[in-house]
């Protein structure tokens, strides 16, 4: 037996076979629509959210267009067809019907859920300097620090509230980055989206706190259709983080999100994701289908930076992108995607350079274990006006074992001769030698592998807001944790 094979069959397998810590279910009475998708369902969702007429029209238009669309099949993932008529499109805890005005009115069971997930919603218990919007199935449960943010002119609320309270902003920007008919899943989302966050940072304001949204899927047989819109007005700055978990179930559940970022001239948006949806079990049973469209538009001198740590989901289909529309705009994508068991990830980014002197950086770290499949798919396009545009892409894969796969699909299109595009790619294994060096120094194999993997991801982790870099490291450790000893 070769030493690598031996390593694959024992040590690594034990190390990557760990429990999913967020897999519990909250027992709350929910108001859940019967499964099925049609115009009436969309009317009910819109009515429940007390939306103005224009919003309903927008949804219906999206729905009618979506019915003409086909599910994409180009991604390097395989799954049985999702029966969209078998899932429910709206589910909310009954206690949320009266829209609690303050945390005191929120069902303690819901607050307990977030506390268990490490996200206490009482402001005094929270991480200082982080405001949270907590989304439970189809509704936002609470948004913290709203009044403190309002002092700075920052709007941070659920998208449902924004549709009611800030219709002028929502109408102007919703669908401006990801049009209703952009792609199959975005079209579906536009028709049935339920909740997500809305952020507006006024001109010249540096948002005084980190903003974050925590998505929790709880109810069975439901889909979650998150919609998030962030608008950073001229010269403003915001750092935003999203987290996600779901109960452990044998059925697959769909999370189809659309996130739109608008960075007006001179603005900067830093968007970080720590995605820990239930990944399914060792044999690939259960887990979330995470089909997500995330895109930002950067105007002159604006900067958009996506950082993602993806450890969950049965299937990840996600390409946070930046349209570098303005001259001197900057786009960044830093990604760690860990797949284990039978997880499949097809993730990457698109950097669309339209303006002059635009600059993008892509750093992607894929870690594959078990019999999982991990693909990086990235597009760099230099438009005809993109004089002196520059891109640097670094794409590294780390394999744990030899039953998993890593794939890289870089697409490069350059329509301007002065554009420079650099691409570096590596694939490596956690070597026996590295593991042996650690063990010879007294470090147990589990800790050693976690250390080596964390080291591999260091360039990405350093892009996360400090409070979350530690969390991300721990999450990776938990995901790699096994029953050694």
């Amino acid at each position, binding site marked *: 037996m*070769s030493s690598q094979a*031996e390593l694959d069959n024992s040590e690594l397998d034990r190390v990557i076979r760990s429990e999913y810590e967020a897999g519990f279910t909250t027992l709350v009475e929910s108001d859940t629509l019967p499964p099925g998708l049609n115009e009436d369902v969309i009317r009910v969702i819109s009515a429940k959210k007390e939306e103005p007429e224009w919003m309903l029209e927008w949804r219906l238009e999206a729905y009618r267009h979506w019915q003409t669309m086909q599910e994409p099949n180009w991604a390097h993932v395989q799954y049985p067809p999702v029966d969209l008529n078998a899932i429910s499109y709206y589910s909310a805890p009954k206690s949320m019907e009266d829209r609690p005005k303050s945390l005191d009115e929120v069902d303690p069971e819901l607050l307990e859920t977030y506390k268990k997930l490490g996200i206490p919603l009482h402001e005094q218990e929270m991480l200082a300097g982080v405001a949270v919007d907590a989304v439970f199935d189809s509704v936002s449960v609470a948004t913290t620090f709203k009044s403190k943010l309002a002092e700075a002119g920052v709007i941070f609320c659920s998208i449902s509230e924004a549709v009611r309270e800030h219709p002028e902003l929502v109408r102007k920007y919703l669908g401006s980055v990801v049009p209703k008919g952009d792609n199959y899943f975005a079209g579906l989302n536009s028709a049935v989206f339920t909740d997500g966050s809305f952020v507006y940072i006024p001109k010249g304001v540096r948002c005084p706190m980190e903003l974050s949204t925590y998505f929790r899927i709880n109810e069975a047989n439901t889909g979650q259709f998150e919609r998030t819109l962030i608008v950073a007005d001229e010269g403003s700055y915001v750092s935003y983080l999203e987290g996600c978990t779901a109960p452990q179930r044998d059925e697959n559940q769909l999370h189809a999100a659309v996130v739109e970022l608008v960075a007006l001239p001179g603005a900067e948006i830093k968007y970080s994701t720590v995605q820990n949806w239930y990944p399914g079990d060792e044999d690939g049973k259960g887990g979330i289908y995470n089909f997500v469209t995330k895109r930002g538009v950067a105007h002159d001198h604006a900067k958009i930076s996506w950082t993602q740590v993806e450890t969950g989901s049965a299937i990840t289909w996600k390409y946070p992108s930046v349209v570098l529309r303005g001259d001197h705009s900057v786009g960044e994508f830093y990604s760690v995607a860990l797949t284990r068991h039978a997880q499949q990830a097809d993730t990457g980014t698109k950097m669309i350079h339209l303006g002059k002197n635009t600059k993008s950086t892509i750093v992607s770290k894929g870690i594959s274990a078990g019999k999982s499949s991990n693909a990086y798919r990235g597009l760099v396009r230099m438009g005809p006006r993109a004089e002196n545009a520059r891109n640097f892409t670094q794409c590294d894969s780390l394999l744990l074992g030899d039953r998993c796969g890593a794939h890289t699909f870089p697409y490069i299109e350059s329509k301007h001769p002065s554009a420079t595009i650099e691409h570096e790619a590596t694939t490596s294994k956690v070597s026996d030698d590295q593991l042996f*060096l650690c*063990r010879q*120094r*007294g470090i147990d194999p589990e800790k050693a592998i976690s250390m080596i993997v964390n080291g591999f991801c260091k360039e990405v982790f350093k892009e996360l807001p400090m409070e979350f870099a530690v969390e991300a490291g721990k999450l990776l450790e938990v995901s790699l944790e096994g029953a050694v000893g």
Partner: protein
Amino acid sequence: MLEIRDLHASVAGQPILKGLNLTVKPGEVHAIMGPNGSGKSTLANVLAGRDNYEITGGEALFDGKSLGDLEPEERAQLGLFLAFQYPVEIPGVSNMEFLKAALESVRAAQGKEEWDSVTLLRKAREACKQVDLDAQFLKRGVNEGFSGGEKKRNEIMQMLLMEPKLALLDETDSGLDIDALQTVAKGVNSLRGPERGIVLVTHYQRLLDYIVPDFVHVLSGGKIIKSGGKELALELEQHGYGWLTSGDNGDNGKKDQTA
């Protein structure tokens, strides 16, 4: 502390060590010399427990415990340290982070007090100074982009901090210029003490000018064919390994084993 009796071992199924005997007592420094491919690194790796290095006969006892029954990390926790012939790089894992994990584990296992971060950093800086390594190296990834000589000094730096009971140094001298060799030798000598055993594996005699061994053994064909005092190294230097491994003296040598 180290008692090797009639040790047979194979690498990836291929027999390499064929009846090796060696005893190291506390306070002693042993040098193991031999031509390339004679099995020196194999011996070091078998003792440290590398995957695929399998004991097929005889035994190796460390403080009375059979090494073959222990995981590599357990051997390390008992105080066995191997300075590698080819230290591997671990990108992104800082030397300091690595040392912290190693020392926490080993010191806890040995019932020694835990070093807080301030103490650890101070000790690590001292150890760097001893081997003439800039303290900046503590922040860099383990061996990441280090030159050959820096890697070797990094190994000795780790050894100084880990204070092993038994240190195995595999060709620590190779790739070092004369200044670096002296620095490294000084580091190793500073570890010499009545409680500690040191086994130097080397191809060349020159390291032994600076770390003077109590015993010299010649390894050939998977066995120790001759043992003696420090003067044996000089004789080897003059006559070459052929003096022992071929011709008349070969057979005598093989019979002349001292354990």
